[in-house]
């Protein structure tokens, strides 16, 4: 029998075609379409979501992969801080439909517990997906600790769909110099250097002229008037704390004034608002009497604490003014809404009044109601004027030199502004960038 070497394979092939076709159908049934693949992957994620459901907030288990989840999370150490902040960026969900916001969770890598996840930020879906983590003092970032993040898409029904966990890869660390403050440092060194230069110059005996300030020159006259009238002098050191520079300036003036009062044998009344200021003021006045050689004249009831309530203090001081009728009232230091009530009552009582404050909003009230007012920096310069010590005068000249520099810069900015208008250049912007520092990072 002759073997048909062509017919047999052809018949076999013909027989195999249907079986191949059946096999192909069966394979097609096993291989998912693109849509089916995405469904399966999402189901996997949904399974993972169930596994990594955080304890923070109500755990809402949802297997229906209805929402898209955010992608990659990038974590950077924020520069110029104490090592307690990260800049966190994440890729938003490709399809934001149905997402109201993203919940960002953080935990320490070594802590495996699901309870360790902290909800550190809620970002509305239409807002930027970059934020600074570490602002919330309840969930601080510790320097040197490794953290991990995960983000959940939150549906309109408040259901969370969690993305994968991403390790931060870096730890937060603090810096030893704030590079954003270089300009401040340069200006600080320049101004401090100038003040020291004038300290030294004054110390070497250079003669320096100080513009007379009528308010300071009137102090002697006011003390003399009180002495002649046999009435006390009221000294109000403001209602701020000792941490306020205006209060410290006031206490330095109090020392000078108390010394003169001790010389003239007049009575001084110093009611205090702050207990720490009271203790310092008492010591200052006591020492002034001691230096004047009249420690026996010091009355321990002359400096006293009144109250720490603003308007109760006003009522107390006004009462002293109306009952004791001081011949001279000094209001030197930091004042708020009570300034006008004090000064107006003093004016009604007929006292000569000298005020001084660096509170810009209170200056008009003092100018209106007082005989003399030390405006802003004059309060700080008063001690130098009263003491006539070379270094103190040098400090005032140093201040003036600093102001001269700032005035020169303002004039230069004015010239550049005009130049920009005339020549259509942008020199003022360049200059502004050169000298300004952003207040908020």
């Amino acid at each position, binding site marked *: 029998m002759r073997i048909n070497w062509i017919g047999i394979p052809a018949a076999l092939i013909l027989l195999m075609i249907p079986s191949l076709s059946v096999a192909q159908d069966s394979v097609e049934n096993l291989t998912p379409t693109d849509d089916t693949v995405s469904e399966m992957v999402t189901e996997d994620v949904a399974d993972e979501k169930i596994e990594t459901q955080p304890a923070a907030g109500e755990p809402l288990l949802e297997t229906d992969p209805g929402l898209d989840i955010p992608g990659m999370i990038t974590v950077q150490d924020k520069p110029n801080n*104490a090592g307690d902040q990260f800049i966190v960026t994440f890729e938003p969900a490709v399809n934001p439909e149905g997402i109201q916001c993203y919940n960002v969770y953080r935990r320490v890598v070594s802590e495996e517990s699901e309870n360790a996840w902290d909800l550190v930020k809620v970002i509305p879906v239409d807002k930027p997906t970059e934020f600074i983590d570490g602002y919330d003092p309840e969930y601080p970032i510790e*320097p040197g600790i490794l953290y991990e993040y995960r983000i959940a898409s939150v549906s309109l029904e408040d259901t969370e769909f969690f993305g994968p966990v991403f390790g931060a890869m870096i730890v937060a660390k603090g810096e030893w110099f704030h590079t954003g403050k270089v300009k401040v440092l340069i200006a600080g060194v320049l101004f401090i250097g100038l003040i020291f230069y004038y300290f030294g110059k004054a110390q070497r005996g250079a003669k320096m002229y100080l513009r007379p300030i009528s308010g300071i020159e009137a102090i002697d006259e006011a003390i003399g008037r009180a002495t002649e009238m046999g009435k006390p002098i009221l000294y109000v050191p403001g209602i701020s704390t000792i941490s306020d520079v205006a209060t410290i300036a006031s*206490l330095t003036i109090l020392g000078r004034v108390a010394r003169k009062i001790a010389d003239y044998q007049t009575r001084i009344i110093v009611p205090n608002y702050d*207990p720490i200021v009271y203790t310092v003021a008492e010591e200052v006045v006591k020492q002034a009497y001691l230096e004047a050689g009249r420690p026996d004249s010091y009355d321990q009831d002359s400096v006293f604490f009144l109250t720490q309530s603003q308007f109760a203090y006003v009522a107390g001081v006004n009462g002293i003014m109306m*009952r004791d009728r001081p011949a001279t009232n000094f209001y030197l230091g930091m004042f708020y809404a009570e300034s006008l009530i004090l000064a107006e009552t003093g004016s009604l009582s007929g006292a000569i009044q000298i005020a001084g404050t660096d509170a810009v909003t209170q200056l008009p009230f003092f100018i209106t109601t007082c005989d003399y007012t030390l405006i*802003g920096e004059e*309060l700080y310069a008063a001690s130098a004027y009263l003491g006539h010590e070379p270094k103190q005068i040098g*400090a005032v000249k140093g201040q003036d030199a600093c*102001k001269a520099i700032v005035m020169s810069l303002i004039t230069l900015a004015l010239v550049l502004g005009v130049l920009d208008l005339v020549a259509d250049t942008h020199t003022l912007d360049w200059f502004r960038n050169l000298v300004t520092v952003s207040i908020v990072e």
Partner: protein
Amino acid sequence: MKRTVPLMIVMVGGILMMLQYFIPHQYSQVIFNNYLEWAPIVGAFALILGVGSLTRLHTHKIRRKAKNWQYSWAVLIPLFGMPLFGLIIPQSLGGGSDVHGVHDFLFMHIQVPIQSTMFSLLAFYIASAAFRAFRAKSALATILLLAAVIVMLGQVPIGDVFGRWLPNTGLWILRYPNLAAKRAIMLGVGFGMLATNLKIIFGVERNWLGGAGK
């Protein structure tokens, strides 16, 4: 020694605080926060001294039968009465600081109205001070008066009756001449603070230690 030690503390503390501004590191922050935490502790002890001072002053007045000595009772009785009701007397006898206690009653019905009264006096004092300030006695006072009238009318709805120029002029006065003057004062204040701080830190100004710097 009595002066050297405080001066050294101030110098070291002052320089540290200056440097701290430029060092954001956590060690620097810890030092800074410690300083901030000390302040209220010192304040709490100073308050004891303050209350002691007030008590001493008024008991002296009562003992000496000084002028208006009766008013001293008005200070001493509430000074010790309020803590007595708030802290010592039990709640069953009207003590404690809850809303039905005597402490709360006294605070809400005496302290708060008195303080509000004092604050409301400010409105009348502003009116009298404004009257005094705006008397056109000289050319400068007249300019001040005019500026004040424009600014005040510009801030209220009736200003629009005269036309938009009035509120706009008022705004211009506030934004330019007024702001320029305010900034000039603030600049001077800033340098004044800097110089005062340096004088204190480096011991040039020692008056705060007591005495006139000798």
